[in-house]
């Protein structure tokens, strides 16, 4: 890597002060994306502010209406949490499918959504479940939080504290991991609540995570895999790269959506 300053504040105020203190200061959450990025010199911050010593950021709480997951909660903790398993089992399952065990032992939900990699898993869950991102200054609906590839509504000196997920939806997540790229080439999170169905897609959108409105409408009318048979996702909005064409990804999204619906229906 290269030399940079390191700060390990014990409280949120101290962390925010550190973020404002210098040019190009970055937050260090789990580091599973940031460290490779630094090693490749794709980012060269002057200092890193490590959030690991702020205990309240790792909390997971289950209230009557919301499951609240602290920004520094690690994927392995979310996957293993009895509270998450009870409140939103699909979310626990999703967390257990991220990366590999070593990555799950370090990576955090806050880091994942702040990075907003177009192939990341959590953004699909946030969007489908109608989560709210709680930051050091405000509350942001997931719809407004993810603004583009690797882009979010976060300001430079704003820190994610937690993600609030409404409980009570029936939900499932299915992803197709391309064997040649390892990444989700189509991850579909389906959530159904009181007749309203949300279908959020990751890994395939040119602008990052998105909701598939046609599928939502079809499933709201008839919640069954067959309801999607007549639909086709418009390939012109779908990502193409060395691992697959837009047409291919569009088909993958449909297959994964049908599998998620089937999983909920069973």
């Amino acid at each position, binding site marked *: 890597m290269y030399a940079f300053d390191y700060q390990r504040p014990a409280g949120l105020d101290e962390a925010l002060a550190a973020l404002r203190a210098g040019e190009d200061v970055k937050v260090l959450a789990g580091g599973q994306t940031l460290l490779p990025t630094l090693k490749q010199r794709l980012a060269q911050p002057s200092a890193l502010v*490590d959030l690991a010593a702020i205990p309240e950021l790792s909390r997971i709480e289950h209230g009557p209406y919301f499951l609240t997951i602290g920004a520094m909660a690690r994927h392995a903790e979310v996957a293993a949490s009895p509270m998450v398993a009870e409140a939103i089992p699909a979310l626990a399952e999703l967390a257990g499918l991220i990366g*590999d*065990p070593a990555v799950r032992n370090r990576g955090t939900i806050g880091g994942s959504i702040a990075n907003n990699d177009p192939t990341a898993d959590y953004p699909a869950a946030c969007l489908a479940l109608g989560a709210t991102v709680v930051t050091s200054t405000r509350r942001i609906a997931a719809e407004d939080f993810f603004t583009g590839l690797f882009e979010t509504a976060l300001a430079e000196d704003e820190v994610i504290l937690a993600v609030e997920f409404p409980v009570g939806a029936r939900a499932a997540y299915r992803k197709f991991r391309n*064997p040649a790229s*390892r990444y989700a080439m189509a991850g579909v999170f389906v959530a159904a609540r009181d007749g309203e169905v949300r279908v959020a897609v990751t890994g395939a959108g040119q602008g990052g995570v998105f909701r598939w409105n046609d599928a939502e409408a079809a499933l709201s009318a008839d919640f069954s895999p067959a309801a999607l048979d007549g639909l086709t996702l418009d390939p012109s909005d779908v990502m193409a790269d060395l691992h*697959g*064409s837009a047409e291919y990804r569009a088909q993958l999204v449909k297959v994964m959506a049908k599998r998620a619906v089937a999983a909920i229906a069973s």
Partner: protein
Amino acid sequence: MNFSIDGHAFSAEPHPGQCLRTFLRERGDFGVKKGCDQGDCGACTVWVDGAPIHSCLMPAFRAADRKVTTIQGLASGDALHPVQQAFLDAQAFQCGYCSAGMIMTIAALDETQRADLPRHLKGNLCRCTGYAAIHDAIDGVVNVSDDIAGNACGASLPNPFGPGIVTGHARYTMDLDVAGLTHLKVLRAPHAHARIRSIDKAPALAVPGVLAVFTWEDVPRRLYSTATHEDHLVDPDDTYMLDDVVRFVGQRVAAVVGESEAAAEAGCRALTVEYEVLPAVFDPELAMAPQAPVLHHKGGEAHGNVFAEIRGEVGSIAEGFAEADAIHERTYTTSRVQHVHLETHGSIAWKSDDGRIHVRTSSQAPFIAHEKLCHLFGFIPADLHVFTERVGGGFGGKQEMLTEDLCVLALLKLGRPVKWEYTREEQFIGASTRHQMTTRVKLGAKADGTLTAIEIRVVSNTGAYGGHGSETLAASLSSPMSAYRCANKKGEGFVVYTNMVPGGGFRGYGASQSTFAIECAMDDLAKLLGIDPFTLRRRNMVTADDWIEAIWSGVSDVEFGSYGLDQCMDLVEEALATGPRRPVPAGEHWAEGTGIALAMLESGPPTEHRSGAVMELLPDGRYHLAVGSTEMGNGSVTSHRQLAASVLGARAQDIDIINADTDKAPFDTGTFASTGTVVAGQAVMLTATALRQNILSYVARITATKPDDWALEADAVVGGNARISLVELHAKGTAAGHRFLAKRKAYLSPRTVAFNVQGIRLAVHRITGDIEILQSVHAADIGRLINPMQCRGQINGSIAMGLGWALTEHMDYDDTGHLKNAALRNYRIPSFADVPRTQILFADTYDTIGPLGAKAQGECAINPIAPAISNALFDATGVRFASLPFTPDRIFDQLQPRP
């Protein structure tokens, strides 16, 4: 900051920006390995507070006040952790480089996680084993057998370095602390073809910690080839250590030496280079065209960009096709792939007090590297010592001299020890690859399937330099063509320079590429004729009574030391019909199919190959064996001990062994082309036989008997009721001036042949393109099994590598010659989840040429894998997938209805 590493508490300040992996290794915790430095391979896995993490992705400061456990701290004193013991019992490693990380991950799994290994082992890659032995270890399977004196051959004996591997104490090339070490890094070319106008060293030399910069003006202007062969003339001398013309993206431009890796890297970034960009060509067909830019003007070897053309015809294919009832013709292409041995290339060079130069390197051919360094620098051979420690995988990639030369250059200029270790990215852009080949196959046959003509045309994209180019092409035209009996055969091939990363040796060596083409074409022909693929092959495959002939009518030194292809075919057919398989996955859009392919490979190369061994009886009654060949995970150290022990009536564990060291072992051409058993093993057998004769003759002399009256046992010579312990004999003999020493050489000729047949049953999803292997069956005719466990290990590893080639691996370039996936994150080698268990079966043969009945077994098993999968896809879908790899998106694209 306070650290606790493996129970040792201490205070230290990591460098700013340092990751935990380099922090641990700087302290001498060499059990923690570097495989990728990007969190993709798992070789550096350690525990932090009991949870496994990638230590390359954790800043060192984050480990402060936490409890770090490495592989070296996993055992409790002398008591191994149960997973370490399980790895020994199952011998769940070959090169062992991944074992430290693999064990740390597995040791942290709970029972639930063990029930879902594909998911929980996703982060740990192994390139050698195909994961079968690792799965065995997790299941508590004991694969090793007892080491009984006189019965070493044929027993599944463990690797003598196993305890070091599972505890992290085995030392690989870079696991060495050298006082005053300097670090070398190179700047690599950003252009596919360019002339270097100028290099300004000053900004690099101004970087703190930079000691020196070397450019093309600082190196001996002497041409050579990085490929290592005994006969250097088989490769074109087309390379300078540093050149003023770069011919591929990633070629060396300049070397910077610094006090630290960071300083050397900063120096590389600071260099100012002015390039004159030249036209580039990437496609070999275009490179053969008259107007193409010509890459090399260095001598007579190249004809335009074609530096080698090979042709031959036996019989008359014109007549053969004229008498055919059916003709099939199609082009098949294979992809450029990388070896991905987990230990990257690297060397360390230093000078001893007596002025001699020592090079510790990760090489399959240290003796040839020694010769090349003498050639480049004008050394007297005795002044140079080249050797290996444990080598973390090779697969042909280390049949090159890629790092030794610049380390020696810097050592000579600076007088200080120099180390150069490749990054994973450099493995992809600056090492060798499998030659991309395009093969046109034309087959003619009678209605009953009898072949009347076989014609192939191979175009090999050798990239910017021609190492291994002509030899891999010759191999592609050789054994795959010999595998079928046909009166009329013709082949022609071209090795073409392009502005791509160079090709090199790679397990299967050219034969893999044309086997893919010919075996796919045989199934295409079978379909055309309406004949079952087994029947078509049996009707035409070479039999023990046939003359072995490819496309040349001249005589060769290849013959059947044994023949078991017929058995292999029967074994695979039977197993496919009756063996265990998984069901087709539930849901719509799945199609099922089966496919087979056969492969024949000569045991050893047509080029010169020799080896040597020295053996000695030691005062304590044990033996010492020195053999020149490299152990890189292929198991040769284990099997060589077994060969020697078998001859000497000893136990394998009674034999100490060293290898691959130009000071301490006799010359060996190199461990490649499946020669570890048939050449180096032959040298060991001859040497052990000579030592046995030496011992028995001495006993006969002092007892006034005949040597035949005596036999060697584990600790003694025995004749009738008389028994003299080896300890006593050694003492007596040495006192009398006798020397219990023997040395022999082995030369490869004649060469025998080995056979492999693969059967695959798979299901393919027509929309997602997902392929599920439902059944994998492999039969091998590799003669007598010196070590059945290791033979299965080599085959499992070959199959996994073949699956990677067939299904996922592909070096993907943009139109300016830049590699788009130069990382393990998007260049995917198979992980645990991707490799099904294979039912491995062996033909019952005993070779009359190879040592103690054995023949080659390290390479050939990869060759039938990709075509068997293509044939199964063809059976399932009716569509021929003729280009590797069969990635899901390509499956989808080809299965779409065509307008």
